[in-house]
């Protein structure tokens, strides 16, 4: 068992899947010879060759479109889009095809496609490199949206994503790529898509977070009797785990990096307001990014929730 950061954990997950299943292929811009702009696919081109680790021309829509064709034919393609902001050019392929192939063919065709892409801020890059628009993709039935919050879960969830017959948008929190290290063992890791986990148990308030905000939420929760739920799969999401927790704690704080309005925090708040309102001892609080275009590096941090902000919200609902 080796300590590794999320980049290494994802690389290991890809390597193991490539080894165990000849149907797995990777494709994307610079994933091959270069090893990926984040060095995430390093060594895989050398190990598995250009037929399985495919450097593509610059066309996000064709990367996903071609991968859909491969998936329909029976392969398990893992497509990399360099940043979530560049999937916007491929949304038609994701929404009109990947998500619908099974439905359209009445279950005959599947689309076991994974689209991996970093999301959120943290690398101080130009615009469209820090998008956190996961909610847009959670309104598309047929598509799964998976977001890991630590190296161990990155490996486990990516392997599960590659093995599910449904198409998965796999969002990797750029901010965490090299921030955390964890023991990540070789081999299969037990995790189930569609299930949230209690990342930290507690009794007085439920904090729901995912991906880039999980680590901050855990830090913020430290001073309180707060339960932190790592949502992991955003679509379809695990309402039951959240509801059960809120029914116990009576308080809900939802945290995301994305803009407040229309963010996925709204869905969680709405679900609780529909199905667990009789347990609520305080108003629901969302701690989110602002309703703005993610700013360039010099102002980027203004837009990203801090652990202090999250702790403030926790204290507020507890004091209510």
């Amino acid at each position, binding site marked *: 068992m080796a300590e590794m950061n999320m980049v290494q954990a994802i690389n290991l997950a890809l390597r193991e899947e490539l080894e165990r299943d000849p149907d797995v*292929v990777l494709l994307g811009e610079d994933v091959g010879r270069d090893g990926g702009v984040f060095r995430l696919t390093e060594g895989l081109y050398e190990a598995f060759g250009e037929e399985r680790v495919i450097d593509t021309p610059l066309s996000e829509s*064709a990367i996903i479109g*071609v*991968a*859909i064709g491969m998936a329909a*034919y029976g392969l398990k393609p893992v497509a990399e889009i360099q940043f979530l902001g560049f999937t916007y050019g491929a949304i038609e392929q994701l929404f009109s095809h990947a998500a619908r192939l099974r439905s359209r*063919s009445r279950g005959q065709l599947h689309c076991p496609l994974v689209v991996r892409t970093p999301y959120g801020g943290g690398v101080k890059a130009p615009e469209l490199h820090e998008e956190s628009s996961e909610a847009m993709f959670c309104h598309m039935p*047929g598509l*799964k949206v998976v977001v890991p919050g630590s190296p161990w879960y990155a490996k486990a969830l990516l392997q599960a994503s590659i093995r599910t017959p449904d198409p998965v948008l796999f969002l990797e929190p750029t901010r965490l790529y090299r921030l955390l290290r964890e023991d990540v063992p070789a081999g299969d890791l037990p995790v189930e898509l569609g299930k949230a986990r209690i990342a930290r148990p507690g009794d007085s308030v439920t904090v729901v977070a995912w991906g880039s905000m999980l680590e901050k939420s855990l830090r913020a929760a430290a001073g309180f009797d707060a339960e932190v739920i790592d949502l992991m799969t955003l679509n*379809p999401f695990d309402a039951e785990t959240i509801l059960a927790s809120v029914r116990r704690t009576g308080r809900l704080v939802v945290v995301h990096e994305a803009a407040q309005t229309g963010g996925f925090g709204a869905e969680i708040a709405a679900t609780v307001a529909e199905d667990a309102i009789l347990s609520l001892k305080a108003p629901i609080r969302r701690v989110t990014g602002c309703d703005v275009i993610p700013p360039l590096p010099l102002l980027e941090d203004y837009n990203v929730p801090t652990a202090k902000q999250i702790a403030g919200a926790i204290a507020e609902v507890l004091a209510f």
Partner: protein
Amino acid sequence: MSKKIIASFTVSRLEILDEQGRVDAELMPDLTDPDLVRLYELMLLTRQFDQRALHLQREGRLGTYPSVLGQEASQVGSAYALQKSDWFFPAFRELGVFVTLGYPLAEIYQYWNGDERGLLCPEQLNIFPICIAVGTHIPHAVGAAMAARYRGDPIATACYFGDGGTSKGDFHEGLNMAGVFQAPVVFIIQNNQWAISISRNHQTAAETLAQKAIAYGIPGIQVDGNDVLAVYQATREALQRARSGGGPSLIECDTYRMADHTTADDAARYRDPEEVQRWQRRDPLLRMRRFLADRGLWDDARQQQLETEIDARLDRAVAREEATPPARARDIFAYTWTEMTPRQKRQLQQLRDLRELDHG
């Protein structure tokens, strides 16, 4: 220090069978008499199906329907060159290909009647579901071709789309990928001169659609799309090239949409009836029938007999479609993800409680 030519390209057009039913013997494809008759029969079946569909639609027994009238040769000729193991990626106006490949006729009616069960493809056929978003299926055909090559399957994929489809970004991105990876795929443009009300000349300033292949470093050819023999021959060559490692090709079938865009359209609003009349003279069935008659392979009696047989077949298909029990509410949930979510189950329960007999 110069201005010099560094590359030159040409675009060719293939014609074999002319309007009078005469063929160019040198270019004549390697087809037996039964093949030639079969091509005609499939075109007639396509035409009669199409007419029946228009009929049913007018009677309110079918939804909005896109006629293929005039495009029978472009579709039957190209599809006839496909092998069973090749994969076919349709747009939405490829009735002639479905018919040629043996897709159940009842299911075609079913689909156009607004029932997705019509897209459930029989196991032995490799037919992708109809694609409504114009041009967006092009990369799928490229990906499937790449997957087939990766697996070592000696097949090709055939991707159909219209003149309008050539303007979408997916056309460009897909063909470029195909060129780079030398994927075994054949792109078949059904250039029927119209994309709803937008004429070919308003769709692109390129003189031909075939020349768009030059942008991707792949072979492109224009064929007389109302000449079933030319279409067959060009497709066959392209498929063989693809299957034998020669990479992708683009075929422009120069044909015509004789009918309205769909039953919801009125082409008289935007196009000159004289243009339609001009193309009437180039009818793809007529010239093939003349050719067969000259060869002694066809006569009026056979024509009448076949028409009657087809009609009976269509009667049976329509009857089968209309006897299909209605789909269940559950069907709208069952194929979304591999498993139904708890929330979907609750939604289905609510539907059952509230709506069992209430579609309003």
